[in-house]
Structure formats: structure tokens, C-alpha cells
């Protein structure tokens, strides 16, 4: 069997259905194998679309997303998506063609050293140079995508290997056995955590994306919350790990988090952080946070290198979130510790009630079409339908995270770490393929949409159930917001006054759509969108002045939060 068939066979055995990609010269033999075996493959309209779609698929399913691209420009077009997957811990297997082995290093046509380029943004990557190595490399790469903390892995295969006969796997077993330092596992540490909790007066549980992607962790967390009675906040990536209506849930923490969550993270005397990495969007000023001595920080993460990287913990636990909560649940007695924390819990809950009042007023829809109200109105149409909420990056991302509740884990797809504009539409393509029975609701700005608008193509050709809501404020809103607040309204290159007619573009792709410029039109459009099977493009002309609040300016502390009305 040749290299191309070997790869396709391998992916079939792993249950890959489908792969995403874009053909080209170096991978033409691979695409021939796809054709001959009728291997399921989604053709996006750009390699960047393919890699983000594979990410969207992986974010929903937890299984590795697989993407193919040709050598040179095909491979370099994957780079943004690979970096995106790296920062958001998305399992991704990228298989790229390279120039033939005897041309490597000669600056051959469409040659780019993609192994070198992607080294710092992959968990690991490979350039396969012998037929014997192909199968063992694929096997190792596949395992690596989901082992421990998930992430992207790239396998670069020279063109001539696709046509070369590949020996049946005869991996010699000569590999060196790797010994890692013994982990500080949850099983050995839960007593310490429990004792720390008993001594705490103002504890907070912080949940990150690691909980969302750990199998069984959300169920174990739910039990832990009932048992402990702790207040809980999530990072943006942790959204969906908890029932958003849970009485102990404070919402999202960080730059655009809720007042109650940010006050709690600033004032708590014990922070139990699970599956998060304390990025600068969560703790703007880590040295100040570290310097405060009245707080015990417990950090649980499957990746030991995240522990102590930004915030110095007092108790370190190198374990999977599910394992941690399961062990804590075994340790916890029947009666919760909540009685110890009544005063604190009530104090924070007051903030929560006050902010909910502000939110309720923001949710009142009127003809201005404030983004908060638009997002909320759309969310109400999908209550109880287990929607998958997808965002692009920018203001609409934060409004969606704040005002659209999701009902299950792996249901909020957003580019959190890399903050990649243009991810929304292709993520939604991958999500709709992963879960055809669920509605996929995408919020995308007029800026971000134009970065990957070509992915309207697969929406139409595969009739994917994606509702594209264009949150149009005719500007690059988030950057404009910073310019308004911190650069004396010098709106440098952020005003998009010559946007195309998005509905005509949708129409040209054969997609149904409509526009809302006031309250009544929006209500009508939401109904039409909801009743439409398959894709729909809803173009919402927003109030262009609205800013994202609350906001903690970059590098500042939780107490520096800006929130009109609070």
C-alpha cells in the first residue's frame, strides 16, 4: 500500500469522519486516495477555513480534528489555526504535504519549512523521511493530540512518500522509555485541599476550559458544588462547565467578567483554580496578585507547566479535572462547609443581584438594537434546544459570552487564547458537521466575517444548520472601544464605512437571509431564522456606540473594573 492509502487507512481506523482540507500539488496523490476510497472530506474554501473548521469539530466532539493541506502556501495558511488550537488546547492533527525528499532544502516550488515554522505552536511535529517511519509517526502523533493536555500536532509528509510502498507496521520497539517526575496527583492532595477549605472564610472556585474538556469533569464538578456550597466563577473558556442558572454561579471572571466574579477573585482568601492558566485576561497584574499574602491559591491542572507559570500557588495538583473533583467528592462529608462562608457568600450574592438588575435593563429590546439586547433576544429563541454558541473575536464575542446562556459543556466555541478574528464562521462549519441535530448559533462582527466569508461555501453546499448573525456596527468595535477609552477617540483604521451588502453576498452563495434595523424587524427575523431549516444569515444593524462593559483595563486589577451603573 502506498503512503497516501496508508494515511487514509490509518484515519479510517481511527474513526475520522470527516477530515477537512484543501488539495494542492504535493498532496494530489493523497486526494486521489480520498477519491478512490470515498473517504469523508470537507472542502473548505481556504486552508485557514479548513483548520478552524477542524478545530470547531474537535471543540464539540473532543475527538481530534484532522486537516490536510498542501506544501508551501497551503501549509502556511494553517499556521493561524494551529496557533489558535495550541492556545485553546484543541486536539488537532494537521497532515501537510512537503516537497519530495530529494528537493527538501533546495527552495523547490511551493517549499516552506512548515515543520520549522510550526515548532513553537505545536505540541510536537514531524517530518517523515522514511517509509518505515510513516505508520509509527502517525500513531504517535494521533495519541499526542489528546494525551494529557490536548493540542495540535503536525505531520509533514514529503510528496514522494505518498506514492512509495509503505511496509506494514514493523515498529522495532526500540524506542526509549520516558520517565517523567512523579506527579502530585489529586489522590494524594485532597486532604490538604479539604483542610485549606475548612480554614477559609472567603473561598472561591475558579473553573477554566480544562474542566469543559475533561471527560466527566462537569458532572463531578456539579456534585462538588452541591457538596461544598462554594461560590464558583468561570473563565471565558470555562463557560458551559456549569449550569449558568446555578445559585452559586457568579459568571465569568476577567477583563469583561461580571462585577461579582471579579470582586470575589480580588477579595477571596482561598482560590481553588481548576483547569485554567491565569492568562493576562483573567489576572491583569499577576505580580500584585501574587504579592497579596492573605490568600491561599490552589492550582489544579493537567499540565504541570501551567502551575506556577503566572500565579504562584500554595498547593499544586498535577491532575485531570475529573480526577480532582471525583477525589474531592469522596473526601467530602455529607454536610457541606457552606455554614463557614455564609457572610461571604451573602456579600457576593448581593453584588450578583445588583448586576442582574443592570443586565435585565440591558436585555430590554428597543429600536436602538443594543448588542446586549439583540444577543439576549436571540438566545431566548433557542432555550431548551442545547444550542452550540459560536463567536468570532471582538465585542460580539464578549456580548455573546455575557448574555447568551449555553446549556451543556462543549457548547461555547470561541477563540479565547489567540483571539483570532475570522474563526467564527469556520468554527461553526465544523460544529454543525459534528452535531447536525443541534442548532449552531454564530455571532460574528462585520469585520471578522470578512476575514473568512468564503466559508459561506460549505454552509450552502452541505446545507449546514448554522445561523449566522452578523453583528454589524460598521467598525472594528473592540479596537475602536480601546481607542475611545484610552486613545482619546483617535479612531485609527477601525471604521468600516464601506461594508458590502452582506445579504447580497449571502444570496450570491445561495443562502437565505434577512436584515433587522429595528425592534420589530429583529423579532420577525429571529422567528424566520428559527423556523428555517439549514443555514440562515441574519444581518443586524446595531447601535454603533455601545461599548463592552464591565471592563478591567489591561494590566489592571479586579478592583479597577469599569461598569456604568455599578
Amino acid at each position, binding site marked *: 500500500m502506498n503512503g497516501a492509502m496508508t494515511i487514509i487507512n490509518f484515519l479510517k481506523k481511527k474513526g475520522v469522519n470527516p477530515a477537512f482540507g484543501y488539495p494542492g500539488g504535493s498532496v494530489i496523490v493523497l486526494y486521489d486516495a480520498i477519491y478512490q476510497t470515498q473517504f469523508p472530506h470537507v472542502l473548505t474554501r481556504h486552508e485557514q477555513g479548513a483548520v478552524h473548521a477542524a478545530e470547531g469539530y474537535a471543540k464539540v466532539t473532543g475527538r481530534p480534528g484532522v486537516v490536510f493541506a498542501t506544501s508551501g502556501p497551503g501549509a502556511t495558511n494553517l499556521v493561524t489555526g494551529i496557533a489558535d488550537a495550541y492556545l485553546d488546547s484543541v486536539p488537532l492533527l494537521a497532515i501537510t504535504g512537503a516537497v519530495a525528499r530529494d528537493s527538501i532544502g533546495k527552495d523547490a516550488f511551493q517549499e516552506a519549512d512548515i515543520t520549522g515554522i510550526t515548532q*513553537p505552536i505545536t505540541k510536537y511535529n514531524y517530518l517523515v523521511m522514511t517509509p518505515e517511519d510513516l505508520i509509527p509517526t502517525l500513531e*504517535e502523533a494521533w495519541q499526542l493530540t489528546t494525551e494529557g493536555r490536548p493540542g495540535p500536532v503536525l505531520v509533514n509528509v514529503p510528496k514522494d512518500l505518498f506514492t512509495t510502498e509503505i511496509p506494514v507496521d514493523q515498529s522495532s520497539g*526500540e524506542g526509549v522509555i520516558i*520517565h*517523567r*517526575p512523579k506527579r502530585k496527583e489529586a489522590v494524594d492532595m485532597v486532604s490538604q485541599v479539604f483542610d485549606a477549605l475548612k480554614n477559609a472564610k472567603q473561598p472561591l472556585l475558579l473553573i477554566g476550559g480544562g474542566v469543559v474538556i475533561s471527560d466527566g469533569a462537569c458532572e463531578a464538578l456539579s456534585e462538588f458544588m452541591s457538596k461544598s456550597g462554594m461560590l464558583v466563577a468561570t473563565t471565558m473558556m470555562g463557560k458551559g462547565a456549569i449550569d449558568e442558572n446555578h445559585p452559586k454561579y457568579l459568571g465569568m471572571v476577567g477583563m469583561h467578567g461580571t462585577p461579582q466574579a471579579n470582586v470575589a477573585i480580588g477579595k477571596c482568601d482561598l482560590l481553588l483554580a481548576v483547569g485554567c492558566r491565569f492568562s493576562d485576561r483573567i489576572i491583569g497584574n499577576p505580580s500584585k496578585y501574587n504579592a497579596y499574602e492573605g490568600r491561599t491559591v490552589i492550582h489544579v491542572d493537567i*499540565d504541570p*507547566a501551567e502551575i*506556577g507559570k503566572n500565579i504562584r500557588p500554595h498547593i499544586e495538583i498535577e491532575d485531570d479535572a475529573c480526577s480532582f473533583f471525583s477525589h474531592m467528592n469522596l473526601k467530602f462529608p455529607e454536610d457541606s462547609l457552606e455554614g463557614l462562608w455564609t457572610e461571604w457568600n451573602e456579600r457576593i450574592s448581593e453584588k450578583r443581584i445588583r448586576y442582574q438588575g443592570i443586565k435585565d435593563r440591558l436585555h430590554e429590546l428597543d429600536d436602538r438594537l443594543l448588542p446586549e439586547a439583540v444577543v439576549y433576544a436571540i438566545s431566548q429563541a433557542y432555550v431548551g434546544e442545547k444550542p452550540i454558541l459560536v463567536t468570532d473575536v471582538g465585542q460580539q464575542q464578549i456580548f455573546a459570552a455575557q448574555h447568551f446562556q449555553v446549556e451543556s459543556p462543549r457548547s461555547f466555541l470561541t477563540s479565547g487564547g489567540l483571539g483570532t478574528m475570522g474563526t467564527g464562521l469556520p468554527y461553526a462549519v465544523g460544529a454543525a458537521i459534528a452535531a447536525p441535530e443541534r442548532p449552531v448559533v454564530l455571532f460574528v462582527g462585520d469585520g471578522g466575517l470578512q476575514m473568512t466569508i468564503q466559508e459561506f461555501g460549505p454552509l450552502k453546499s452541505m446545507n449546514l444548520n448554522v445561523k449566522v448573525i452578523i453583528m454589524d456596527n460598521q467598525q472594528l468595535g473592540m479596537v475602536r472601544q480601546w481607542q475611545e477609552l484610552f486613545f482619546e477617540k483617535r479612531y485609527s483604521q477601525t471604521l468600516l464605512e464601506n461594508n458590502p451588502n452582506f445579504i447580497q453576498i449571502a444570496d450570491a452563495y445561495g443562502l437565505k437571509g434577512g436584515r433587522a434595523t429595528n425592534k420589530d424587524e429583529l423579532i420577525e427575523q429571529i422567528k424566520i431564522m428559527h423556523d428555517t431549516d439549514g443555514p440562515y444569515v441574519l444581518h443586524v444593524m446595531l447601535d454603533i456606540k455601545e461599548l463592552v462593559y464591565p471592563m478591567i483595563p489591561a494590566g489592571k486589577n479586579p478592583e479597577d473594573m469599569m461598569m456604568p451603573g455599578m
Partner: protein
Amino acid sequence: MKHNLSILVENHSGVLARVANLFARRGFNIDSLAVGTTDDAKISRITVSVIANESEIDQVLKQLYKLPIVLKVKRLERDAHISRELAFIKVTCNDQTRTSILQIADIFRGHIVDVSTSTATIEISGDSDKIEALKNLIAPFGILEMVRTGTIAVERGERVLSLTDTEN
């Protein structure tokens, strides 16, 4: 503060680049680096001197362990290991200065490994400070060129760097 790390890695192409890139990308400051094979041809050993504080060195170790090609990392305790560099110093000399240069090299247990009518090349091994000291003494004669390796290091006594021991 300077720390010496011993790293066992799989011996194939590109491994050194991966380790060096990791240091560069994470902003760790390499003072010196040396690499060579071990008694097992499948395994190479890298010795890195890195300037870092406690929490940075902790990060270095953890980040290194995330590379699949890294088999074992050990931080060598101060005073519990021997470290050496090797250097060649080519210095200007003539009939008047040759003896002095030879004597200085002798004091440092260096050897003259090459001479010409106007040059002498000293080979010297030792820790960084010793090589630095010799360099400073030789400098007035006129150093034409100098080349030195990175530090290599091994623990004292019965402690050995082995793949199987799980202490860090």
C-alpha cells in the same frame, strides 16, 4: 543565578534545535550549551547553563518535560557536581614572551598545543572562572582568537543521571 541542567534527549536530528528554541521562545536566558552522545548511541546529553531565579528554573524544567524527545532533566546541585569548559586561546608571542606565556599556561595546567614563530595556542580546561582568569592574564600579550565550548557537568560521587530515577 546560574544553574547547570543535564538533559537526556533522544539522539536524532533537530533535537538540539527544539531544545534551544524552547529556551528562546519562553524567554529563558542560556549562558552556555553543550551537547554530545552518551554511552548509549540512542541518547544524547545536553548540558545547559541557564541564568534564572527559582520560579523560572521550575518553569524551565516543566517546559522541557513537555517535549516528547526529552527523556530526563536534572538540575545539578551547586557544589555537588563538577563542571568544565574547554578553550583554545591563540596568543601573539615572540622569543621574549614565549616563556612567560608557557609559564602562565602551566600554572593553569594548560598546554601549548600549537606554536608558530609569532603565535602560541593554549588548550585549557576548567570551570568558567578559571578560563576567565587565564584569559585575563594572557590578554596583555595579545589574544588573536579564542574559542570555548559550553560547560559540561557531571555529579560527584555515586549519584548518576539515569533514565529510571524519578526524583527530579
